[in-house]
Structure formats: structure tokens, C-alpha cells
């Protein structure tokens, strides 16, 4: 068959894979496709494409290779980047010491003179810690610091109104609370079966109630479930079912979240709604959220 009598292009159709490979590799192509072989050979002819400024270009590439080769190994560079400056270390150490002192001050466990100094100092930065008292204003049957939640304790010193349900308490009945937080101060022990983070500091005197909570749980505070009193600063993220047992304190519970808060005895109403400040005493309890506050 010749090209002239091959109108249906049987030759092109019969191109084998090997033929195609030879054509593309520049090897001798099939004799019946010289035009394609020529086209590809022309494409492959790159002799005219040489760079007139080849020397300068090569010098630039070489310089770039040497520059790249002169860089530090990646591991060393990374280690240097991750090195902590000494200043940061000192600041971190000071912060740890300060927070430890603040926690102790929040407990009221420091010596009176130190406690007073710390309270004064921290008050300048809007952190309330109890000032030393010879005797607690409300006799408590409870230990000074009782962790009421499970989890990582975080304490924020405070003084003032009782609150135990800010943040972490939302819920039903005197049950349990589970959470992360610290509950310090003269307070009732809370049995936690909830979730959340809460920080409680229980002062002996009513005062400021700074709550910064994020509660999600079921809690019931009050007579039936317990009364958490003399808690002034509550900060935490709570999520759980709370139970707080009643004590001899007479401050109303605070409920923030979805929960039921039952309050029986009041002398100092707490407020817990994020950040609250309690200044007025003998007010009825307040409940924020979907709680029930049964005096």
C-alpha cells in the first residue's frame, strides 16, 4: 500500500506502540510516517537555543548553589529558633512564684502579715484575696480549701459574695460536679460529677464576686442540694452536675447556666454571671441562666 492509495489512512491507524515510541525517542520512525518524524526531529533540534549569555548565567547559578550550600543545617536553624530566651525563662519563673503566692493568699493560708500585704498588692490589679481575720465571720465546718471539682485546679483569689455555681454549675440537684478547677476557702465540699473548669475561692467575708464562668451542667444549690456560700470569686468553666452540700454559711447560691439552684438561707446574695461584683448584702439569690433558684 502506498500513500496515494491510502485515503483512509490505514498506515497511520496501524501505528504500533513501538513505532510511536521510536518516533518520540527520535529513533528511526516508521517509513510510512516521515512527515511526523520530521516534525518531531525539528522540534528536537534545539541547537539554536543556546544562551548567548551562558557564562553569566552559569556564574549566577553557581553562586546560588554556593549560597544555598553555605546555609546552616535545618536542624541547627530550628534549634536556634526554638531556643527560649533567658528573659522569658525569668518571667516564667516569676509568674510561677507569683501565682503560687496568690494561690496561698487566696486560701488565706499565709501568715496574717503576709496575707495582708499580698491582699493589698493584688487589690491593685483587681484581684481580691481575703484579708487576714482572726476568726472567720462564719463558722465553717469545712476545711479551708476543699477541692470541689475534678480536674486541673485554677484558683483566682477573691473575697466577697458566695458563689459556687458560677461557671461550672448548671444543673440539677445536689448531685455531683465534675470539672476542672479549684475550690478554695471556707466552703462546703462539693461532690462533683460534672464537667467543667471552675475556680472557686471562698472567702469568709462577703465582697466582690468576680465570676468568669462558662458553665454547662446541672446543679442544684441550696437547702436541698446544699448551699455554697462565702464564695466570692468564681471563675471557671464548668460543665457538669453539681452538688454542693449545705453549710453554715448563709450566702445564696448562684446559678449560671442551665440548672436549678436552690437557696434557702441568705444573707448575702451572690451574683454570678460571668464577671459580677457583689456589694449588697442580704439580697435574694439570683439565678442566671436556666436555673431555678428556690429560696
Amino acid at each position, binding site marked *: 500500500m502506498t*500513500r496515494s492509495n491510502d485515503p483512509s*489512512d490505514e*498506515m*497511520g*491507524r496501524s*501505528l504500533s*506502540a513501538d513505532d*510511536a*515510541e521510536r*518516533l*518520540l*525517542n*527520535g529513533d528511526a520512525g516508521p517509513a510510512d*510516517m*516521515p*512527515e*511526523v518524524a*520530521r*516534525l*518531531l526531529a*525539528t*522540534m*528536537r*533540534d*534545539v*541547537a*539554536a*537555543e*543556546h*544562551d548567548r549569555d*551562558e*557564562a553569566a*548565567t*552559569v*556564574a*549566577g*547559578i*553557581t553562586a*546560588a*548553589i*554556593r*549560597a*544555598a*550550600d553555605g546555609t546552616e543545617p535545618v536542624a541547627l536553624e530550628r534549634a536556634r529558633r526554638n531556643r527560649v530566651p533567658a528573659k522569658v525563662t525569668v518571667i516564667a519563673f516569676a509568674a510561677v512564684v507569683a501565682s503560687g503566692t496568690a494561690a496561698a493568699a487566696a486560701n488565706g493560708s499565709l501568715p496574717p502579715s503576709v496575707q495582708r500585704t499580698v491582699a493589698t498588692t493584688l487589690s491593685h490589679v483587681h484581684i481580691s484575696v481575703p484579708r487576714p481575720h482572726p476568726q472567720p465571720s462564719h463558722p465553717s465546718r469545712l476545711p479551708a480549701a476543699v477541692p470541689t471539682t475534678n480536674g486541673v485546679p485554677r484558683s483566682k483569689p477573691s473575697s466577697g459574695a458566695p458563689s459556687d455555681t458560677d461557671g461550672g454549675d448548671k444543673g440539677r440537684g445536689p448531685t455531683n460536679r465534675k470539672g476542672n478547677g479549684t475550690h478554695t476557702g471556707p466552703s462546703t465540699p462539693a461532690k462533683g460529677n460534672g464537667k467543667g473548669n471552675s475556680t472557686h475561692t471562698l472567702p469568709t467575708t462577703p465582697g466582690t464576686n468576680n465570676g468568669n464562668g462558662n458553665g454547662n451542667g446541672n446543679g442544684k444549690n441550696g437547702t436541698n442540694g446544699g448551699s455554697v456560700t462565702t464564695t466570692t470569686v468564681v471563675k471557671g468553666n464548668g460543665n457538669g452536675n453539681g452538688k454542693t452540700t449545705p453549710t453554715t454559711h448563709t450566702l445564696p447560691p448562684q446559678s449560671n447556666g442551665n440548672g436549678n439552684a436552690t437557696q434557702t438561707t441568705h444573707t448575702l446574695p451572690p451574683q454570678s454571671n460571668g464577671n459580677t461584683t457583689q456589694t449588697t448584702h442580704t439580697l435574694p439569690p439570683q439565678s442566671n441562666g436556666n436555673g431555678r433558684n428556690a429560696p
Partner: protein
Amino acid sequence: MNTDGFGALLRAAQEGDDSAVASLYHDLHPRLIRYLAVREPRAADDLEAEVWLAVAQGIARFEGGEEAFRGWLFAIARRRLADFRRTAARRATVPVPNEELDGAGGEDPADLVAEDLTSSAAAAFVVQTLSPDQAEIVLLRVIGGLGVEQVAELLGKRPGTIRVLQHRALRRLHAELRKAGVTR
């Protein structure tokens, strides 16, 4: 160049040896600039410079033979090309010289009869005639000098698919050339 020869050349180039770098450049520049000129005529020089800069920055970590090196080079070129096109697509307009507009119609297959057919004209004809995938395969195989496996890796396709596409591409070229009367 045999394997040992290229290995020694590569090691020397990795250490910044001028002659080794010159040898690599002399061997690969024509292929690279031709490929880029076909793909992006107005930016080929700039793109090539970017490719060589990337090669310079990464050659110390490269391991492989000559064919693998070519594949690596064209992989970089394709990435730079894609970056360029992505950037250009965001531009409202791209200035084009009048002389380029005059020849915007592409190569006439009949011109392929001429003896002085340039390499660029032939490549332009391939790009104009074939589908994008087919053209890319032919360009990488013929101009880049890459094998089926490397092209498959670059394009993210299976080698069998590449073989099928290149086979169809050649048949298509054959048909178009016949139609234009190019029978030599």
C-alpha cells in the same frame, strides 16, 4: 552521558564547581527554554531563570541519575509555569506586542513543507493541533527528553494512559500533516 559520568558531574555541581554547572546548563538549557517558550512565549526567559534558581537551591539535596534530573528540572518548570499562569489569570489584561498579534493564528501546516521550519514553529504546530494533554506529553517527551514513566509521574497519570495519549497524538499529527499535503 553515562551514569557514572553524570553522577560525578552532579556531585561536582552540588559542590559549586563552575564547569560542572556549565555542563549541566549547556545540556539542559535548550530543552528547558524551548519548552517554556512554547508554553509561555512572553515569559519564557523569566520562568527559566526562576527554574534555575530553584535548581540551585535544591541541587544539594537531589539524588538520582540524569533522566531523573531532567524530570526534576521539568517538574520545577511546570510548577513555575502554573504559578505564572495563576498570577496572570488574576490580571485584567496582558499586554501583547502587535507583532505577536499578527502571528497569533499559529503555524499553517502548509508551512511545514518549508525547509527552514524552525523548532519553535514545529512545537507551536503541535500545541495548536493536539489536545492539551497530548501536546504536553509530546513536548515533554520530545523537547524534554523524558521517558513515559517520568511523564506519567509529572502529569499524574498512569504510564499506560500516557502511551495511549501519545499514540493518539502521533496519529493526529499524521492526519493533520497529510491533510495539509506535507508528504515528504
